[in-house]
Each structure stands twice: as C-alpha cells, then as structure tokens.
C-alpha cells in the first residue's frame, strides 16, 4: 500500500522550504499535497461512464472543448470559439499551443477521433446519449473542426461539456485498456497512480495552458462513510470533502479549521405519480397532495435551511428555462382535505412512496416527512426503501408504485431535465401532447428566445397538471479547510481544482 501521510501545516512549510532550496529540481516526495475526500469512486477510470463521480475524476487529466462552470454556465476550454455555419454544422476553433501530458500537440485529429470513438456504439460509451444527434466530424485544418448534427441540436455545447478529448496517437498506441489504466490528456493534473477503492494520486501539470496548479500533488481518496469523511476533514487529513450529510454540518462548523461550502445543485427532487391508476388519474387528488405538503418546513427542518423549495415546477431557479412567474403553492391542509373530499378520495387507499436510500441528500427522511404530512390530511401513506438496481428495474417497467422519489439534474439547461416528462425520455407515465410538442420545438431551434418561451409554458403545464409533487432543489454540500482558497462547491459535483490553493 502506498503510504502518503496527510500533510500537516509544519510538513508543508518544510516541504516548500526544501523545494525552494533545491531550486527548480525534479518533483520531490514531500511536496505540497491537496487531499480530497470523495464520497464515492467509480470502479475504474474508464471514460464515458454515466456518473458524476466518474466524470469528476476523469476531468482532472482530460478536458472537453467547452467546460461547465460552478456558476452553471459554459466556458471555453480546449475550444476558444465556435461559429454556427448552418442549422446543423458548428465550427470550433481549438486553442493553440495546448500540449498533452506526453508533450504532443492537441490537434483537430484528436477531437475528431474522440467524437468518432464515442459515436461508435460498439465502444459502449455511456455518455453517447449526450451527443447522440451528432452525425459526423470534419477536420478543416489542424486547429479547426466542423461538427455536423442530424437535426438542429441546441444543447450541443452542453453535451460536449461531458466529452473528454483523448490523444489519438496515445489511443493508437495503448488502446482503450491502456487509456483506462493510465489516463493521459491536456488537463491540469497528470496521472500518477490509481488504487481502486482507496485513492487516485495525480501530480500537477507544470505546463498546463491555463497556468500550473498551485500545489504539487493531488490525492483524491474514497471515504464512503460520511462520518469518517467529516472526521478526516476535522482531523486535517483531508482539505476538501464531498457530500457533508445534513446532520454532520454542526460538527464541521464547530471545528476551528473547517467550514461548509454550499451551492444549490441543478437537481430537482420530486415525487412522481403513477397517473394511470385511480386515485392519481384525478388531477384534484394531485393538487390536494401539493397543498398538503409543507415544502418550506421540510427545507427548514430536514435540510436545515439549505437548498431551495422548487417553485411549483421541475427546474431549479438558476436553470435556463426556469419560469420566474410560477410560485410554489402555499401549505394549505384545509384546502387539501376539501379537494380530497370533492374527489371522493378513498380514505384507506394505501399510498406507497418508493425511494432509494442515500441516493439524494436526506432522501428517506424527506419521504417519511411527506408521508406524515399526507397522513395529516387523511391519506394512508407509507415509505418503501428500495435497493438501487431493483429501483431501476421498477422504473424501466413503469412499476414504481403510486409515488416515487427521483432527482432530475438539468445541468443548467432545461432540455436535460424536461426530457423525463416526455415519452422519448422513457421514464414518463404522464403524457401531455402540448408538452411533447413544446419540448420538440425547443429542441429543434438554436433561438434562445423561442426555447425560453417553450420551457416557460412547459413549466406552466407541469404546475397545472402536477404529474409530480415538486419538492426541493437539492443542496450540494462540501466541507472545506479554512486555509483553502479559490475553491467552490459545484452544482454538478465535479471537482474543479486548477486554481485552488491553500496557505
């Protein structure tokens, strides 16, 4: 086992001093190290696995053409600009002078190779769906590339933000197994060692195009138990930890060396109804449930004031497409009871709320609170906690019971979240012709005004029809050592550490 002790303040001071004396010599063993405690590791460094945990690790060595930011927007990365040539062709200019970790230059051939590799279904690239409408890539010159799509594809840039560019020459030499064993890209950190289930060790890329990282070595440790993760932060073994559970926030805040950094993620946490079966085929029942649940109380008591109440719609308030004119319905149990009476709601009808455990912040607690609030208006609600794989099977078979909890990420663009209420998303039981039409309209234009109008109307439809109970925009909570600067909590759970420093 590699023994990499967490650096104490004194060790860092000595190491920096030693490095200064040694001058510009090769990297030394006890360099300035940043240690991050991750909640979950992907099981391998295989590119294209559809999970934020995987993307977060791979993003350290490899980069996309355009990158997402912690503020929810997009920023140029390996591409510096793009031009829309026609409805289905976008031209990208690549950043010049960018070098892979092996010293070779990034060229359009590498970008074309990466995209073509992803488009080949035989390669089983999990994130293919993000850029599925792409039909081809043409290299114009070494720093220019044209991407063509089968139809107008307004979320091309957002889709490309998950596509990490590989070196064609490196792939030709080592194959996909080699890339997985030793990722090599243009990113701020260079692969050093991967110990499955334990740690990912990287060194700083001194020649990084956006300036060398402020520390020499990055260690990302997997610490699955939240209590242990918080303990490692408070003990100074880690400087940043992911996923601070709500009940351990006080322990972090009591510590003299650590604090909590929070951002509202783009995940809308909702309870989806099976609208095929009575009593949920009656819109009055769904409306009554919305009045019966006090979302603000859940945010206050369970999330301890973190995150946000969804404003009667699927999208969180920072997402593109959020409709600011719709407000969450107030908590009104009397109105709920009246509506249920009017709908002749069957009092003893068992309402099972299905959820996974630990998938979202306080998921089971929130379900229990909802069940309690529904109980107050005379609904016989219970919570059923289901294992992840089984849950997925239930979803695929559309047998998730009367209500189930799910969080849909928008990643900042309504398209990614709204798709789940369309038939094409293969998750929706509810079916609304106008919603389907608007979704397709918004997806087939690059005109932001038309798209905004479509999403605003779609949010109105969701608000009127209540195919789901819209609960909360989930917080993304990090624990951070107070000496850390230039780090912020990410709404998409990607670690962005190129500018991070600690004193």
């Amino acid at each position, binding site marked *: *086992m*590699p*023994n*990499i*002790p*967490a650096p104490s303040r004194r060790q860092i001071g000595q190491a920096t001093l030693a490095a200064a004396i040694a001058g510009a010599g090769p990297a030394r063993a006890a360099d300035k190290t940043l240690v991050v405690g991750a909640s979950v590791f*992907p*099981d*391998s460094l*295989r590119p294209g*696995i*559809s999970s934020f945990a995987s993307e977060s690790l791979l993003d350290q060595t490899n980069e996309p053409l355009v990158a997402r930011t912690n503020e929810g927007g997009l920023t140029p990365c390996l591409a510096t600009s793009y031009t829309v040539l026609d409805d289905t062709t976008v031209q990208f200019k690549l950043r010049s002078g960018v070098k892979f970790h092996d010293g070779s230059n990034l060229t359009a051939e590498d970008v074309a190779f990466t995209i073509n590799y992803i488009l080949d*279904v*035989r390669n*089983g690239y*999990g*994130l*293919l*769906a*993000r850029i*599925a409408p792409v039909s081809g890539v043409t290299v114009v010159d070494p720093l220019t590339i044209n991407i063509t799509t089968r139809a107008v594809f307004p979320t091309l840039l957002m889709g490309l933000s998950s596509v990490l560019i590989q070196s064609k020459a490196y792939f030709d030499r080592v194959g*996909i*197994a080699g890339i*997985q064993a030793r990722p090599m890209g243009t990113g701020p950190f260079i692969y050093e060692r991967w*110990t*499955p*289930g*334990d*740690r990912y060790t990287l060194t700083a890329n001194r020649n990084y195009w956006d300036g060398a990282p402020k520390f020499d070595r990055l260690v990302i*440790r*997997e*610490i*699955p*138990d939240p*209590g*242990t993760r918080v*303990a*490692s932060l*408070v*003990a100074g*073994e880690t400087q940043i930890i992911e996923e601070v559970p709500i009940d351990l926030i006080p322990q972090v805040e009591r510590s003299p060396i650590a604090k909590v950094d929070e951002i509202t993620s783009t995940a809308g946490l909702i309870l989806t109804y099976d609208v095929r079966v009575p009593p949920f085929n009656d819109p009055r029942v769904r409306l009554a449930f919305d009045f019966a649940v006090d979302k603000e109380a859940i945010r206050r008591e369970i999330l301890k004031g973190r995150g946000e109440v969804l404003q009667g719609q699927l999208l969180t308030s920072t997402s593109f497409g959020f409709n600011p004119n719709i407000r969450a319905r107030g908590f009104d149990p009397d109105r709920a009871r009246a509506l249920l009476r009017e709908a002749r709601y069957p009092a003893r009808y068992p309402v099972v709320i299905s959820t996974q455990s630990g998938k979202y912040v306080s998921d089971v607690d929130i379900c229990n609170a909802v069940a309690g609030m529904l109980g107050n208006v005379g609904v016989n609600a219970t919570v059923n906690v289901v*294992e*992840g*794989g*089984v849950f*997925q*099977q239930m*979803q*695929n078979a559309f047998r998730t019971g009367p209500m189930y909890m799910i969080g849909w990420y928008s990643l900042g663009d309504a398209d990614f979240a709204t*798709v789940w209420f369309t038939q094409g*998303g*293969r*998750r929706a039981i509810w079916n609304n012709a106008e919603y389907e039409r608007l979704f397709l309209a918004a997806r087939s234009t690059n005109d932001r005004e038309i798209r905004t109008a479509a999403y605003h109307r779609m949010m109105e439809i969701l608000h009127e029809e209540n195919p789901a109970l819209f609960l909360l925009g989930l917080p993304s909570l990090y624990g951070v050592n107070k000496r850390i600067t230039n780090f912020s909590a990410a709404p998409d759970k990607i670690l962005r550490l190129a500018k991070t420093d600690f004193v």
Partner: protein
Amino acid sequence: MGRYIARRLALLPLSLLLVALITFVILRLTGNPVEIFLDVNSTPEQIAELTARLHLDEPIPVQFFIFLRDLMTGDFGESLQFNAPAAGIVLERLGATLTLASTGLGLAMTLGIGLGLVCAVQRDRAADFVITSVAVAGQSMPSFWLGILLIQLFALKLGWLPTSGAGGIQHIIMPAFTISAFLLPNIILITRASVLDLSHEQFVVAARSKGLSRGRVLITHILPNAFNPILSFLGIQIGALIGGSIITETIFAWPGVGRLILNSIAHRDVPVVEAAVLIIAVGIALTNLAVDLLQMLIDPRVRRQ
C-alpha cells in the same frame, strides 16, 4: 486421513457450484446491468449491442451455462465496469482484506486467549468480573458503532491515529481492533470455560501431584487442550468474519474486497461478484478443512473418530 482430505476436497466443487448458481440467479433476477451501466437515455443500438455481448438476451439457464463453460477455462468473464478480467480485479483487492482479517484474527486470538486465561485464573475475583462484563457488553456492540467511537476518540480527540485509509501500521490498528471485537468476547468466554472445565480433569490433578507448578500445568497441559473449542468456534465464524469486514472496510475506507463486492452488486457486475464470492467460498472451505486437520493434529481423540 488422506482419504478424509480427498473426500472433503471432492465435495468442494458441488458446494461451489451451488454458491455460484445462487449468486448468479439472484443478481440476474434483481437488475439489468445494461440499464445500470448505460445512461438511461442511451440509444437502442447501444443497449442491443451490450445486451448481446453479455448474452443477456438468452434465458437465465443458458446464461449460467455460458458462465460455467468460461469458468472451466479459468475465465470468470470480463468486468462490465472495469473492462478487465474479473478474477484479477478481485485478487488485487483481496490482499487488503486478508491483511485486515488476519491482523484482526491474530489480535482476537492473542487478546482473547490471554484475557480468558486471566479470567480463569482469577475466577470470581474482580479481574474476572470486569473482563467478563466488558466481553458481554462488547459482544452486543455493533461493529459500525464501535468503529465510529474509535475514530472519534483516537483520531479526533487524541489525534494518535489517522481516521481512515490504508497505509502504515497506524492505519490498520482501529479497523483490525473493530474486526477483532466481533470475535474477542467469545474467545475470552470459551477460553475461560474450557480452562475451568479442564482444571478438574484427572490429568491436571496428576500433573499437579507430580509437583509441577500451577503456571507450568496451565501452559503445557491445560492450554493445548483448551485450544480445540476455540478452533471449532473460529472455523464456524470465518465466514462471518469476512462478511463483517464489509462494514469495517466501509467505515475505515479500507480498500478491500468487501467494498468491491458491495459496489459490484450495486452495478450488477456479475463476473466480479461471482469471482469474489467463489474465491471467498474456496477460502472459507479450505480454512474449515485446515481447522479440522489442525484439530486432528492437536487432539489424538479427534484423529481416531
């Protein structure tokens, strides 16, 4: 004795086949790896390609047959998530679990037998009472709770040990103790009971009348005979020890095979789960055989049975 070992080894494949079958069927019935692995928005062609590659379009008995056929050639299949042979992935992580389990076992044996002897010698006195009470209390303490307490005390309050992870000796102390705490109370109580039982036996009285000291009798006459019940206990508990290590590995972020199995189950990565379960099953079966043989070596009466 040779025939006995041969018969035991001959029965091994049958138990392994059963273990493999049960694991396979349960995993296949409770989740589709393709849907867990691919994005839910993945294209139909992608789903079809992966389904065919994993033979998921075949009936489960046929899938199991294909799995067995590959297994005959020593091939557990390729891990879905790791893109590498399943057996290699398991073996890579097995070392950490074996290190942890054997350290925990060693700790439990040393402390357990030592404290058990103290209890027997100090029977019904303060030391006996304190150790026995703590042992009973310890037995009823779940290991995840003990692990959390240890981290709070030794890593946070006192700052003596690192909270988690693998590395030097300081990293293994708390997880090994947590694992040993699961066996320790029983070893103490079994040692105490057998030593007390044996001290009234005629051969002990005879040894004492020869003029041997109490300590000498305890070490050379009583202790070897007290060893067999402890060995039987360990033989039974070895499976539980591996099972218990999953929780301990999670709490202390120990990179062992227990967490690997848990992750692989979540992803329905059948080749990895099968490889891990079968390797562990072989390990447990062989350990049990070793325990039986060891008992024969120690006790001539068992040999004659």
